[in-house]
């Protein structure tokens, strides 16, 4: 059997004169979770609807298991399931909503009853079965929506920002349940989001979409640790992105001057001097109070700085430092309390040379 489940070839989608999506090549592999991440307006939804055969592209071909879909759209749509950001439930009971896709496919009553019961239980909505779908909370409605999709036993599951409209605790719970369901079914999945936490959580591979184009595809680690360019880097969350100039290079270890501060970074691909972008993920920055003496850790970089801002994000704390360059560190609440850090305090920020990602400028 082919490894390719769904593929796009030379796809262009237009709205009036504007070209909304232009994707020369994209493959969704059998059994993988491909996360498409990008800012609002990047064309992610159009891409998803094209994959779902809900949009016909102006140009190009959609392939299902390597074969063109033309003329088989309805039959193929019945082998897939789509979940949108809005639950879009019908004015019926929760159970009827979960059963709707099966009914449209003409599944026998006994099959319907069994699958609906199973998936309502898995998504924790069994007790709501007889309730009208119009009376559900946002979280309950999205659970119903997910159960409705999984009840179809789809070969391909397409999800378009299913959790964007939910509050943080509900989102976390649903993310857990979805992640379990994806693992247990092994269904080929395309998950569209603008949230990098969701992407890191679910994605086997991540495709970064901006301005209607796929800019980078790779494993989550590849994409997040080594974004291809400045825009992708800024979007996927490498929070410290500063301009620098390569000063010296020895055995792949580069020394980069960033406004008078020297930073050491592994830069195997770098050949000669010039302007570079220095990218550093806040998770990779370690903080300690200043004045503890010598640093005999393996980290190559130790920058002395002043705490400028402290903000809490989810369960974590973002500390913005002025080290001659602005540096962001992500630490736990516990660490913050133990160190007794406050705005204006002096700290030392450490990070390894291997944690720094260098993007040559002008490429």
């Amino acid at each position, binding site marked *: 059997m082919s490894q390719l489940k769904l593929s796009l070839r030379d796809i262009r989608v237009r709205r009036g004169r504007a070209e909304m999506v232009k994707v020369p090549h994209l493959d969704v592999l059998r059994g993988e979770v491909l996360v498409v991440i990008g800012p609002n307006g990047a064309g992610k939804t159009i891409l998803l*609807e094209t994959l779902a055969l809900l949009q016909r592209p102006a140009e190009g071909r959609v392939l299902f298991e390597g074969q063109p879909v033309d003329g088989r759209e309805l039959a193929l749509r019945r082998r897939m399931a789509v979940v*949108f950001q*809005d639950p879009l439930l*019908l*004015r019926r009971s929760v159970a009827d909503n979960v059963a709707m896709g099966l009914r*449209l*496919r003409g599944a026998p009553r006994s099959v319907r009853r069994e699958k609906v019961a199973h998936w309502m239980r898995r998504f924790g909505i069994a007790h709501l079965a007889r309730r009208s779908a119009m009376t559900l909370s946002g979280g309950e409605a999205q659970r119903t929506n997910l159960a409705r999709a999984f009840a*179809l036993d789809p070969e391909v599951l*397409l999800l378009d920002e299913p959790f964007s409209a939910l509050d943080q605790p509900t989102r976390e719970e649903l993310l857990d349940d979805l992640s379990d369901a994806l693992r247990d079914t092994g269904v080929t999945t395309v998950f569209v989001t603008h949230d990098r936490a969701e992407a890191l959580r679910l994605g086997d591979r991540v495709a970064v979409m901006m301005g209607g184009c796929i800019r980078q595809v790779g494993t989550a680690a590849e994409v997040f640790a080594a974004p291809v360019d400045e825009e992708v880097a800024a979007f996927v969350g490498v929070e410290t992105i500063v301009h620098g100039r390569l000063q010296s290079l020895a055995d792949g270890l580069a020394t980069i001057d960033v406004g008078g501060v020297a930073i050491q970074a592994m830069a195997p691909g770098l050949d000669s001097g010039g302007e570079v972008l220095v990218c550093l993920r806040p998770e990779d920055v370690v903080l300690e109070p200043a004045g503890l003496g010598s640093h005999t850790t393996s980290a190559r970089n130790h920058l002395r700085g002043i705490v400028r801002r402290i903000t809490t994000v989810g369960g974590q704390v973002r500390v913005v430092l002025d080290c001659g360059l602005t540096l962001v560190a992500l630490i736990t609440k516990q660490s913050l309390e133990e160190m007794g850090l406050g705005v204006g305090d002096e700290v030392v920020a450490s990070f390894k040379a291997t944690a720094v990602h260098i993007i040559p400028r002008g490429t």
Partner: protein
Amino acid sequence: MDLIWDGIREAFRIMASGDYSVWEIALRSVFVSGTATAVALLLGIGVGSLLAFNEFPGRNLAFSLVNTGMGLPPVVVGLIVAIMLWRSGPLGDLRLIYTPAAMVIAQTVIAAPIVMGFTAAALRSLHPRLRAQIYGLGASRLQMLWLVLWEAKLPLLAAVMAGFGGAISEIGASQMVGGNLAGETRVMTTSIMLEVSRGEFGTAIALSFVLLALIFIVNLILTTVQQQERRS
């Protein structure tokens, strides 16, 4: 004041006596307007769905035309249908002028734009991505249309009420294309007008009661259905 009281007394006497002609006229009204409403629903839901779901050049113009049609003066409709069906008119060979069929045609022309307008508004009030979701669940075109209309059934009931109300209460068109022939094309509205012109207020009031009661009953049934739906 005597005029009024005598009229009302006479009206109850006529209704209680089971005067055949009053009930015959009422039945014909219901039949003609009911048929017209049914045809208008077919046309109106069809065209209304097309208008609501499709982007095409001139869509705004089409909407304006439908909205104009919702306020179409029955006399003008009567005039146009009469010309078309006149013995020497383009459709004169069908010999429909002064028949109930001619009245059904005229009332359909009056009710159809009302149903179209209500249908288009009802469907456009649904979530714009609902259709994509329904297709995404594996619906064929017909299944999608059926589910979407079912979703919009409450406002669609309003379309039925408005269409039937428009048809049964108009007079100009029925008079013109039906001719108010006793036992053939006489309906409640044309009959009331005739009775008033003859000074027979009792019969006119009796018929008006029946007409009002009919419209009330139809709306009561549809409203009850609506309320039950909303509650469930």
